């Protein structure tokens, strides 16, 4: 694959609304508590009308509003002026697990509780489809390029990066708004707690959208996606090895597109689950693959302690925090991070990201 440049990031989380804020939260010691009565760590003060106004937003669910705001923040962060862009060449790729579960479940609830089962709300019907956020974002910004929604669950971010890289390398788009955003609702909190959060992790909200384009020598991106590899292992016991293979493939791809020192893998982001034993096996497999390439004991990066567990969007917040760190320090220039992911069913995936301090904010 050819390298992909990340030129900006739009962030929403309980731990901050910019890559720098996320990175700062990570280096701090304070861990937020959620308010009693709240289902988890929401994006503080987020209100659709306050953010986006009344016009065009009455059929937005919370996930859609969060996604549109994150896209807007990403465009601003990257300094992209859509007024001068060819909007047929700007696309959107968003990841999810099952869309807005609240929207679809409450829609179904109405069919049981209304006087007649079809007395549902027609305007909200589009919120029940998983591509609602991407479709509404396209309308909001007038983006007529490729518009895709990927149901990747824990692999949502690596899937979005993989799919986005393909769109850029096949010339189907010049710029992509790509990321994962999820809402905090009683339904999402129930799902998170029921499928098993590690102790002391709260359900969270938010995510990040990145602006992606094909990497060019002259540009100074925040980060580059140098390799993405996905796979599947039906047998539980085979999954660590399968994830390790993905890391090796992604690192091999990184080597071919210019990361001549794969040994510079210093950081790994991987969302832990309720199964500590499997998590340890996965972590060892990722580290072993990185160490084979010359890395020394990579450190773990996670935003979950500060932003909560945002489900499919957790990895996107990790990547945003990583960008924040790189922007803050030239000492980290050129270092590699492995974003690793695995699903309960056996999907595995890894992306290799190289970060820089010379992002758009730094001139």
């Amino acid at each position, binding site marked *: 694959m050819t390298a992909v440049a990340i030129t900006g990031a739009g962030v929403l989380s309980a731990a901050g609304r910019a890559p720098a804020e996320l990175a700062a939260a990570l280096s701090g010691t304070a861990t937020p508590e959620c308010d009693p009565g709240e289902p988890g760590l929401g994006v503080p003060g987020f209100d659709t009308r306050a953010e986006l106004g009344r016009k065009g937003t009455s059929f937005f669910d919370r996930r859609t509003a969060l996604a549109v705001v994150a896209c807007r923040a990403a465009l601003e962060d990257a300094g992209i002026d859509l007024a001068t862009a060819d909007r047929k060449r700007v696309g959107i790729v968003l990841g999810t697990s099952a869309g807005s579960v609240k929207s679809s479940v409450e829609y*179904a609830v109405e069919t049981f509780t209304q006087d007649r089962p079809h007395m549902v709300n027609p305007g909200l019907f589009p919120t029940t489809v998983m591509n609602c956020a991407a479709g509404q974002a396209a309308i909001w910004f007038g983006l007529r390029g490729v*518009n*895709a929604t990927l149901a*990747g669950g824990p692999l949502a971010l690596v899937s979005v990066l993989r799919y986005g890289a393909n769109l850029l390398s096949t010339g189907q788009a010049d710029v992509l708004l790509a990321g994962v955003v999820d809402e905090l609702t009683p339904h999402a909190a129930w799902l998170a707690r029921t499928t098993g959060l590690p102790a002391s992790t709260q359900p969270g909200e938010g995510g990040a959208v990145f602006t992606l384009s094909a990497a060019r020598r002259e540009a100074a991106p925040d980060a580059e996606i140098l390799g993405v590899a996905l*796979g*599947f292992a039906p047998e539980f016991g085979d999954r660590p090895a399968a994830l390790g293979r993905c890391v090796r493939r992604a690192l091999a791809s990184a080597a071919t597109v210019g990361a001549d020192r794969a040994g510079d893998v210093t950081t790994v982001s991987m969302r832990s689950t309720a199964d500590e034993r499997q998590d340890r096996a996965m972590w060892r497999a990722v580290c072993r693959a990185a160490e084979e390439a010359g890395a020394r004991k990579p450190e773990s990066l996670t935003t979950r302690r500060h932003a909560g567990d945002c489900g499919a969007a957790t990895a996107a917040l990790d990547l945003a925090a990583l960008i924040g760190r790189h922007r803050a320090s030239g000492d980290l220039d050129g270092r590699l991070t492995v974003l690793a992911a695995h699903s309960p069913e056996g999907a595995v995936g890894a992306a290799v990201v190289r970060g820089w301090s010379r992002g758009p904010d730094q001139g």
Partner: protein
Amino acid sequence: MTRVLITGLGPVSSIGIGAAAFESGLRAGHCGIRPIGSFDTTGFPRVLGGEVQVFDAGSILSRIEPEEWGRSSQFAAAAARLAARDAGLQWERIDPERVSVVIGTTSGEAKVTEMFAQQLVGGGFEGVDPDIARRLPADRLSSAVSAELDAHGESMTIATACSASNYALGYAYDLIVSGEADVVFSGGADSVCRWAHAGFLRLGAVAERTCSPFDRDRTGMVTAEGGSMLVLEKAELARARGAVPYAEFLGYASNCDATHMVMPNASSIADCISAAHETAGVKTGDVDYVCAHGTGTPANDVTEAQALYEAFGGDVPPVSSIKSMLGHTMGAASGFGAIASALAIARGFLPPTIGWSTPDPEMAWLDPIPNRHRQAPVRVAQNNGFAFGGNNAIVMLGAAS
């Protein structure tokens, strides 16, 4: 340039399960639309659906246990197993790491969502079966297929609503062309559910008595279900093993209307058609058949017809809607369209639009292949897919040379 062939088909539909039964259904113009039986339709003013009434996943699946998976995942996995058998793949000669899976869906496990709602109404979150949380994620559709096939390549679920199969097929094609995979199983799956039926009904989009796409008096669409799967294979490997392909995958294009969540946009669709022709390297005059999105709603069909007229410069080849037989199978729909297109090319016939009686003066020029299939050579077929969110995707198939 790597070429990609379609070497296996796996339809699980209301008009036939398996390639042969589905082909007979298309030729005979069978109608799979009946009163809905999978949920209680009491109180609904319209009750038609396209359900797969005789579906025994256990009799088709070889590796996964049906009860571990939701209905949509079962449709996807069963369709994949049928497609694998149809392709006659020699698994012992295939590296499982080189076999990928890309599945499209609109609502994922819609019946699980429905059950979630029903239990929530009954007793709040405490009353909801925890297993629902495990079954709900939509990425389980592609996982079910990968697990059923023991495929170790990437496994992706694309959720671009009712054009999702075409998105999936396009990405599957790119995986082979870019050298990431040798074989890709791609298509879509969805299940009939209470809430989607209610939603379309409330939009005024559901047909009263029959689904009659392109007819002047059409009254709407019918929600339907099933699993549609195609085997895409790197041409040189397919040839080397002596596979008999149905068709060649020529190319695809996708774009977004960015104007309205539910109203289609003719000029945007026309752009998508032209882009699909360009990437596939075909001219409008090469296209012998258009497998339409053709939902049967007044708005879709007239918009689609306008777009075709514009993109083809007025000279539009025969167009049919297999949704007249199947209903609208949502995320599986464009996969069924691709299967029908591949069969049209391989067997030399045009699937009909059934239930058609009166030309619509707004598209009097349109040949909907009314009611009976037509014997005709098909060199190039165009498969349309449109969706909520303005997500258009069009796949072009051609005769395997």
